[in-house]
């Protein structure tokens, strides 16, 4: 499989008047095409820094982030839909930004929205949608420009537990369906196990990768995985590594 993203000995230092913080230290990992990779780590260990580096929003202090020619779509903790735009206009936002607001691209984005049950909400404002629907709209917005890789920054953490499980299931299916590569960062162990093909575990700051696991399940759907016996075994393993 082709590699779409590789971190090569990446270190990241932050400077402020109070001093220098090392957020990441010699991080090495790669994501192959079509893979769903999860990175778990304790809160405040520099997970978001890692995603910003992957998206090219930050330049590493040392090392290299290699992502030859692949495009990225970013999904944040909250849906961040613009309240003054309708769902449809929100979905078109990245097209406008990338100056790709052609009728062809628009209709492609709209057909995605229709395929995933947003048709009746297109002319609505975000405030009239439920949290789950809003997050789905945010995903469709991310997919509107057809990115090769999705970067997911704890995209379910702002939802309540019930919604979270179903939205996670939902988003996972859409991403698989659209055959996208995904890199998820989270501090939620069970979420990572329920979606990922591969999990990397980060240590406390300065963050390093301390473990790598290939997760194999007979099922692929998140909710079904949670019922599997393997699930609790993985949970225990990762829990120990995270707190070790």
């Amino acid at each position, binding site marked *: 499989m082709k590699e779409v993203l590789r971190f090569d000995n990446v270190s990241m230092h932050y400077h402020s008047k109070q001093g220098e913080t090392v957020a990441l230290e010699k991080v090495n990992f790669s994501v192959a095409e079509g893979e769903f990779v999860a990175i778990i780590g304790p809160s405040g260990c520099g997970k978001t820094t890692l995603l910003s580096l992957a*998206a090219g*929003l930050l330049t590493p202090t040392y090392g290299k982030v290699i992502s030859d020619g692949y495009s*990225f*779509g*970013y999904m*944040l*903790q*909250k849906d*961040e839909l*613009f*309240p*003054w735009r309708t769902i449809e206009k929100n979905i078109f*936002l*990245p097209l*406008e*930004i*990338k100056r790709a607001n052609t009728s062809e691209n628009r209709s492609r984005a709209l057909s995605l929205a229709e395929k995933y049950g947003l048709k009746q909400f297109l002319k609505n*404002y975000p405030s009239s949608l439920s949290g789950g629907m809003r997050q789905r709209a945010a995903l469709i917005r991310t997919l509107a*420009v057809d990115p090769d890789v999705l*970067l997911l920054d704890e995209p379910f953490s702002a939802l309540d537990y019930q919604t979270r499980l179903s939205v996670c299931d939902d988003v996972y299916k859409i991403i698989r369906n659209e055959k996208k590569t995904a890199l998820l960062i989270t501090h939620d162990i069970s979420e990572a196990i329920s979606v990922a093909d591969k999990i990397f575990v980060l240590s406390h700051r300065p963050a390093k990768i301390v473990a790598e696991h290939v997760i194999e399940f007979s099922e692929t759907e998140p909710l079904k995985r949670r019922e599997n016996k393997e699930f609790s075994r993985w949970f225990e393993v990762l829990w120990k590594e995270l707190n070790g």
Partner: protein
Amino acid sequence: MKNELISKEHLAYLRRVRGKSVAVNIARIAILFLFLTLWELSAQNAWINPFITSSPSRVYKTIVDLYKNGSLFHHVGTTLRETLLGFAIAVVLGYVIALILWWSDALRRITEPYFVVLNALPKIALGPLIIIWFGTGNEAIVFMTVLIGLIVAILNMLNGFMATDKNKLLLLESMGANKLQILTKLVIPSSLPNFISMLKINVGMAWIGSIMGEYIVSKAGIGYLIVYGGQVFKLDLVMSAVVILCVLAAAMYAVVALIERLVIKNK
């Protein structure tokens, strides 16, 4: 909750709410009525000296006289023009300057102490300078109005621009947006509530500016009537001018409130 069948309890609740708001309105009108009556009676019965306190009937008569000799609309028009022109210039210029300051971190940091000082400075202190620079025409008054509103407009709008949601900024950056796109797609639309509140504040500022300007230098206008009335001891005229001012200021505020409601409805 749209329900065709409204329960008895809900009906009673609605009636109570409506009853309360009716009571509040009655109380508001009653206070005005009581105040005017007491004022009129005190003047009629010479409990107070109507020469220095005037009275509602005298105010009414003065306004009617002003209307009859044709000077009412001349004075109102003069002040209204100055106020609206000063208001418009302060708002537009303030908005543009705030945009520039949002755009340039360096400029914002360098000019910050100047804005702090200018904001604290009582602009009326510049009165004599304004007369010398702009003469004794309307320009001086408009300039005073702009001066009083401008700094407030800049600081209010800049606050709004700087308060743009960090995560939404990150989202746009991740899409590869440039600064102009961030400005037009996010910063300007998300600061709309700040713009409305800036308009509201500046309505008040504009009236302060134009009336103060007319105190310093004027040949016509409501501020002129107040100063003139005071100088020749025609306190009926002073009171009448104040009443007219109350009505105009309230009307202008109502217009802004209407704009606000239209804008919010569109959201």
